């Protein structure tokens, strides 16, 4: 099967989706391909911090200034993805006072508003902060949901005519002499099998695969020396803090706590890896992170951990720089025009950067591509709200209108934003499917209508199965909604994929409460539902009708 497009974007992360939206809004025909679900790479594996720029205010003021500008833009265009938590840089005894002052003046230089707080004032903001926190700087950090943000960008791109293909892996770049002219794709079907390939011809291909950019480059024989660096993050069951807490010191692992939806995410570490698909996950990283961050918020020690995950930063630096410590590699992004760089036309790569500046990155690369294509159109992504944020409304007014218990109404509306009415106003009962995260059937069905049978894609859109039971009480309810539109095999394979993903993160939290939770999950799913496919189970189908009227051979 052959198709054509003007620009083909590889990578369904924030950058790729941002580029797809930007180009589509400029009237360019775009196709975006992603090998897994949107956000499967680095975007879905970050701590959810919308930087104020405070973090880079001493070391990298250019990044800091970009962050605060983009921070302000995203609060406007993506307010349903942003929780304006605010952030604190806190100092403990022994943390450099001089650095604290440099942080303050650095923020001032970058137009980042700050407020200096005493230890007491900081504890008035966050009661669980350690008693020996001496001083703090308040900055406009925020929490952002990378899943929702990415999905909203993809949805906007689609509204402007883009084609978004997930579960479509690029198997090769098509070359015509020294020019990239398209890609070869392998699609995956509902039950996870690869189906025949598709060739998509494109005038320009954008490699927005981040940490995987080198692999795509290699398909066309160009060398992109991405230096993937892994970072561990740990999800706590509930919010110990409602403000982003940063340790105010030059650099170090385990120095940030981000309140994210119902949870807190602890981050992070910075260790270079060879292969972004083979990231060693070690328990000690989790333990040391909890221990170090407990110095800031002591109740983290012993609090319930839901799971841990490892993300891979797409760090890049020009090959001649040769920085040894990945912490020192710049967080700036780089646009690699392979025509200029390698004499290979039709391909541009974007590497480095961070989620907070995804829109700016998309703007720059879209400008570049439009120039290459001779398209004369300006970027409008900073001025037009994303779907879900396009129609401001009063939360309290909306909450009364869906006949839901108040925390469920509040959470649903916060997730759905201006889409709330169209999703939640239904004429039938709307039970809660995921009670940990307050997700109703209407919201799950809305997500299913967009993604087909991929329950992980439902998860990132709704948060269903992301709460403290990690799918124990909702994974099967989600899967049940696929019936009767899909075959038993499809439903089972979707459910298995969700189980597998939920288990992957929980493996690193198997102590205390989450171990008990995992045991309960195992009893319910593996045993009661026989999802472990016990060998004692017959391969014959179960005679359900025997249960209806009872066994007539019985006494």
């Amino acid at each position, binding site marked *: 099967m052959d198709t054509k497009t003007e620009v083909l974007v590889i990578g369904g992360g924030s950058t790729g989706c941002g580029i797809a939206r930007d180009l589509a809004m400029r009237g360019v025909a775009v196709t975006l391909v992603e090998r897994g679900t949107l956000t499967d790479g680095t975007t879905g594996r970050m701590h959810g911090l919308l930087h104020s720029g405070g973090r880079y205010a001493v070391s990298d003021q250019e990044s800091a200034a970009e962050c605060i500008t983009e921070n302000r833009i995203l609060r406007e265009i993506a307010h349903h993805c942003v929780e304006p938590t605010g952030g604190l840089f806190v100092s403990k005894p022994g943390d450099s006072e001089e650095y604290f002052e440099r942080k303050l003046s650095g923020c001032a230089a970058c137009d980042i508003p700050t407020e200096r707080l005493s230890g007491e004032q900081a504890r*008035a903001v966050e009661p669980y902060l350690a008693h020996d926190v001496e001083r703090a700087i308040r900055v406009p950090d925020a929490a952002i949901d990378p899943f929702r943000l990415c999905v909203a960008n993809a949805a906007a791109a689609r509204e402007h005519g883009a084609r978004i293909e997930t579960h479509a892996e690029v198997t090769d770049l098509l070359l015509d002499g020294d020019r990239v002219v398209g890609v070869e794709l392998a699609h995956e079907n509902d039950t996870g099998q690869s189906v025949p390939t598709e060739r998509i011809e494109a005038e320009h291909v954008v490699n927005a695969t981040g940490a995987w950019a080198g692999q795509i480059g290699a398909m066309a024989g160009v060398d992109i020396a991405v230096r993937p660096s892994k970072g561990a993050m740990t999800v706590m*069951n509930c*919010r110990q803090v409602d403000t982003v807490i940063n340790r105010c010191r030059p650099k170090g692992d385990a120095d940030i706590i981000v309140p994210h939806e119902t949870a807190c995410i602890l981050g992070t570490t910075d260790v270079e890896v060879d292969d972004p698909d083979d990231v060693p996950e070690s328990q000690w990283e989790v333990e040391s992170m909890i221990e170090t961050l407990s110095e800031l918020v002591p109740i983290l020690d012993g609090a319930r951990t839901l799971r841990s995950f490892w993300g891979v930063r797409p760090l890049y630096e020009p090959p001649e720089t040769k920085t040894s410590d990945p912490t020192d590699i710049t967080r700036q992004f780089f646009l690699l025009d392979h025509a200029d760089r390698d004499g290979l036309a039709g391909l541009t790569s974007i590497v480095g950067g961070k989620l907070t500046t995804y829109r700016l990155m998309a703007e720059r690369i879209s400008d570049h591509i439009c120039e290459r294509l001779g398209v004369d159109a300006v970027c409008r992504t900073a001025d037009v709200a994303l779907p879900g944020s396009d129609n401001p409304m009063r939360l309290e007014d909306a*909450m009364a209108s869906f006949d839901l218990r*108040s*925390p469920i109404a509040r959470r649903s509306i916060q997730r759905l934003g201006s889409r709330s009415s169209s999703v939640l106003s239904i004429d039938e009962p709307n039970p809660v499917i995921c*009670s940990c995260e307050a997700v109703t059937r209407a919201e799950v069905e809305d997500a299913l209508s967009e993604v087909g049978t991929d329950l992980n894609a439902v998860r990132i859109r709704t948060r269903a199965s992301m709460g403290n039971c990690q799918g124990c009480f909702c994974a099967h309810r989600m899967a049940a909604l696929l019936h009767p539109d899909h075959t038993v095999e499809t439903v089972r394979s979707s459910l298995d994929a969700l189980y597998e993903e939920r288990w992957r993160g929980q493996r690193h939290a198997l102590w205390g*409460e989450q171990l008990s939770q995992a045991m*309960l999950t195992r009893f319910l799913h593996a045993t009661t539902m026989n999802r472990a496919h016990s060998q004692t189970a017959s391969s014959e189908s179960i005679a359900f009708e025997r249960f209806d009227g009872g066994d007539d051979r019985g006494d």
Partner: protein
Amino acid sequence: MSDTDDTSSFDPVTVFEPTEQDLRSGSDDCYKCSTCDSVCPVAAVDSSFPGPKFQGPEQWRLTRKEDTEIDDSIMGCSNCMRCDGACPSSVPLSQMHNTARGAYVEQQRFASDAVAALRSGAFRRAASIVRDGVADFRERIRNRLLANYYTAGRFASKLPRVANAATNFGPTRWLLERVLGITSERSFPSFATQTFREWWADRGGSHVENPDKRVAYFHGCYANYNTPAVGKAMVRVFESFEYEVLVPQQRCSGTPMFANGRLDDAKRHAETNVESLAEAIADGAAVIASCTSCSMALREEYPELFDIDDIDAVSEHTYESLEYLRHNEDLDAVLSESSGDAEEYVYHAPCHARNQGLERQAVELFSSVDGVTIEDVGDSCSGISGTYGWKTEKYDNSMAIGDPMFTEMEAAAGEQGMTECPTCAMQMSHGTGYSITHPLELLADILTDDPSASSDR
């Protein structure tokens, strides 16, 4: 200029103020297993009630610091606290419910919100706050009245005969139902012509002096205003074991206030109670309650909800009356040699007794008494839960919850009810017409056949 003259740099020493810490971390222990929901008597009869798991760990975990609204279904919880006992993972369910209910009632105070909305120019918002607030007004007044039974009892006891006539007078009840939503299906308990405390004063206080065996009696409101016979029985029983009984100054234990989200009222009363009970404890006394909800409040709810000096000491030194005797005296030996009037009792264990692990004590105790038979009706909840069953909109639920208990009571041989809880007793009597005895009354009859004691009855 010296430092002391420079007032502009004067910085008062701020002692670290305890900020309100929240209960979100209580949700860490919940595995969502729903055992709590399966034992909730309200959820069993009312499918619109989302159950204790939602009210507790789910709602807390879903709440961010700035989220103020608590779902109104919290007022459907009767505070029976059975969920606490059912949870396999020690989630502080009732503490979460009590705290949420307190926050809900706080948010019903609409005046300041309305003024704030007006000031910010949000006129429609202010109007809707006032509209909702007025709609809740009747419920708030009614709940406040019910929660403060202590105050009502105090006034009624000034003129008990008038109060008894007035409170059960048809037109009064019609008005109470129409205006306040207090059901007219139930008869108000009658007020004693002499309160327990009046009797105690007339009697000249304790007849025993014993610095080694001292108990401070927390009689609560009901034994004081309505059933002083229970209080008198307590005194007779404890004096028969040579205890010196103290009757310290006290106010309401707070149980009806917790159940109606009036934590500020409860705290005021708790401060008096803790102060005077702590004094008695310092004098070597243990605190004894004859009402299982009172002992529950002092033991569990106080330290969970309030931070008052000595509150932990009060919690640790409080016992239910029979429990204390069973710990400290060889009651079984005494009772196995006693005989009572031949009587068949049908016993219901109050939920709050169950929560303290006391649900079998009356049955175990009295089965050994010659002539007395006692039959347990099982683990049903009576359904009245203090003030809950008095609310017009809750009456049907209350009776539906109580139905299994009524059925069991009628199926049992005895026609004399027994329970430790005064409102369970109301419900037992309301549903079956049986008269209800407190275990202390039977114990007093068995232990003390001294005729001189009859003046105490």
